[in-house]
């Protein structure tokens, strides 16, 4: 699905990325910090962006690709406007995080790791956001929702769906 999405980077984004590369070029081990910032700029790391990073740092594309695919925080596909992240850390798991994830998937009709066709929501699972006291938790963008039940999940998502002109 994601392969069909054309790269829509702007001149401005490219300029930002070139500045990041110039700033970090001499730093030992520059690749990770540059990829972090590149993902901030573009929202994900499509092959076009990886090529720019490779050219800028004077390393091969395969090296960049190898690193970008190794770490779970880097994404090669675009994420939704609202990023939903369900914690599957141990504390959340023993308190029913799997049921929370299942409810989110059911509600949005996509699986973990996917993005809805309208580009509004994407779901990921993560390992521990460190809010174990509130288990089970999920994050929608930067907001953390704790002590969840499948029921509550529905209500929280409804709020976002409504904000977006809701037709789910």
């Amino acid at each position, binding site marked *: 699905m994601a392969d069909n999405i054309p790269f829509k980077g702007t001149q401005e984004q490219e300029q930002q990325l070139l500045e990041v590369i110039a700033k970090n070029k001499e730093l*030992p*081990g*520059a*690749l*990770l*910090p540059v*990829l*972090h910032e590149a993902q901030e700029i573009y929202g994900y790391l499509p092959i076009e962006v990886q090529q720019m990073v490779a050219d800028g740092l004077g390393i091969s594309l395969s090296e960049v690709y*190898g*690193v970008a695919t*190794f*770490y*779970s*925080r*880097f994404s090669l596909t675009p994420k939704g406007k609202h990023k939903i992240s369900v914690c*599957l*850390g*141990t*504390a959340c*798991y*023993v*308190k029913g995080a799997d049921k929370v994830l299942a409810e989110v998937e059911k509600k949005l009709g996509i699986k973990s790791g996917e993005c809805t066709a309208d580009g509004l929501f994407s779901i990921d699972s*993560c*390992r*521990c*956001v*460190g*809010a*174990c*006291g*509130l*288990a089970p*938790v999920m994050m929608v963008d930067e907001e*953390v929702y*704790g002590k969840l039940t499948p029921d509550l999940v529905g209500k929280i998502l409804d709020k976002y769906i409504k904000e977006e002109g809701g037709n789910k």
Partner: protein
Amino acid sequence: MTLEELNRIKNEYKDIVKVRKVVAEESAKIAANTQYRKQVLVCGGTGCTSSGSKKVLKALEDALEENGIKDVLVVRTGCFGLCSLGPIMIVYPEGVFYSQATPEGVKRIVKEHLKEGGSVVKELLYKETVKPDGTITPLLETNFYKKQRRIALRNCGGIDPENINEYIATSGYQALAKVLLTPMSPDEVIKEVLDSGLRGRGGGGFPTGRKWMFAKASPGDIKYVCCNADEGDPGAFMDRSILEGDPQCIIEAMTIAGYAIGACRGFVYVRAEYPIAVERLKIALEQAREYGFLGENILGSGFSFDIEIRLGAGAFVCGEETALMTSIAGNRGEPRPRPPFPAVKGLFDKPTVLNNVETYANIAQIIRKGSQWYASMGTETSKGTKVFALGGKITNVGLVDIPMGTALREIIEEIGGGIPNGKKFKAAQTGGPSGGCIPAEYIDTPIDYESLTAIGSMMGSGGMIVLDEDTCMVDIAKFYLEFTVDESCGKCTPCRVGTRKLLKYLEKITLGKGEDGDIERIEALAEHMQKSSLCALGQTAPNPILSTLKFFRQEYIDHIYNGKCEAGVCKSLIRYEVIEDKCRGCTLCARNCPVKAIKGAVKQPHVIDQSKCIKCGVCQANCKFGAIRTI
């Protein structure tokens, strides 16, 4: 910065911070020396921020202004440890504890308690701290705090982590001054750490002083000091809390380590998933540079040192030391064989010392108070205290710092407040995906490195997940294997293939398709992985299975041979049934069943059609009469 200036700042802020170390009259007496009549501490750690402490803080500041109250100091601290009760707010000198604070509640507290002559709003206090006769127990005197000995966490929840002066007020940077200005020789510093008996708190338990000694002895002009803040064990969050609550103590310790081994640069490798910790660390680094605790010629001693932050990107294996250094160097975070050890050939191929956050959090205190002080706590071979992240089925979910050797029972029943909902304690899981479980019959086991290893678990980084009777041990083992399958870096075959094969067996067993001989095959494969994997991730990946097999073998046998999941977790092995005598025929279950599998007339016992039932459990969760059982 000179020693005189350091001491001047310490004296200026000393009393403000001391007010929070004691309670009632004693605290009030100290408060009288400061310009603040009262102090309100609001937790700004990740847990409390998630439950809305920012709004509470804003409401508090607004309400104080509206009421014209100017002699109350508001401090945003790091984690107090009682995460499940957040947002947390503590008021001194009384030392009383408001839990689950809301903006509305805060307005009331300002009007009724914080204003001149006000008194505590009892209804909003954490209810466990109010006795039936109305007397109030200050937070520091509750079981949760009284039984702890907060060393690594000493400042967490007690100071403003974004204000270096408050750290200095708690004797911060006195250890660095002692090292650089006495001066102590690097060997003396290392001897002090060695004599304290401090061992690595990240999981391995290797003596910290010996690591330093090896790194110092390695030839070379360029050496590095690294801090592992890539806390990967899901369910452990002490490193995050220390960075959020007391970041300066890590900077001070790394600088001391730099002096001891002869390094002038340090790196903190921290999870990008911890934005608050990263932000506070950045602020702390700037302040430390501004005050001259980092940079050229620190305290006029001629020693120079500085620290950089590097962000991890979500790879559990990067908690392994060689993988972490490979990652800082900008590569895929894959481990490599040891030797050579990092003390000889580490970051950028130079001699390197790597310790985790909690280990560093002990260093300044060891230097300041002496190795004997530290060694007086704990057991023969495990000195000092250890921080645990209590999670799962336990009342007081949160962070605790306890002397090594404390019995598990004390942690669960007294500090942790027991198991909620009247359920029975089944086991505690320590060491995360590399560890194992401690079953109920071993609840009196003292918690130290050797005792845990002896029963097939491990200290690990300090995650302690409490499991009750509703937990299926096969399912928990499967959970950890899913984790290691995801996180295996793929470099070596025993781990890459072995973890997947183990997971396949567990999936089969939990689906009710286990076969005779599976247990034996799992055990054989596990042994190969332990012996032949490249790094600790693969070597320890079978532990969650081996440990549950050791203590809960019957559950595996039940799953495989008897088609039964006692805890009622594995859906393929259970069915729901209505207990006729208890069913009142209220029809609630039938109405809620998503597949209309429940039939029955009003006021007549209902029946579940097993051919339609999808085992979602909605009927059981909704039944008010406990009339639905799992078989």
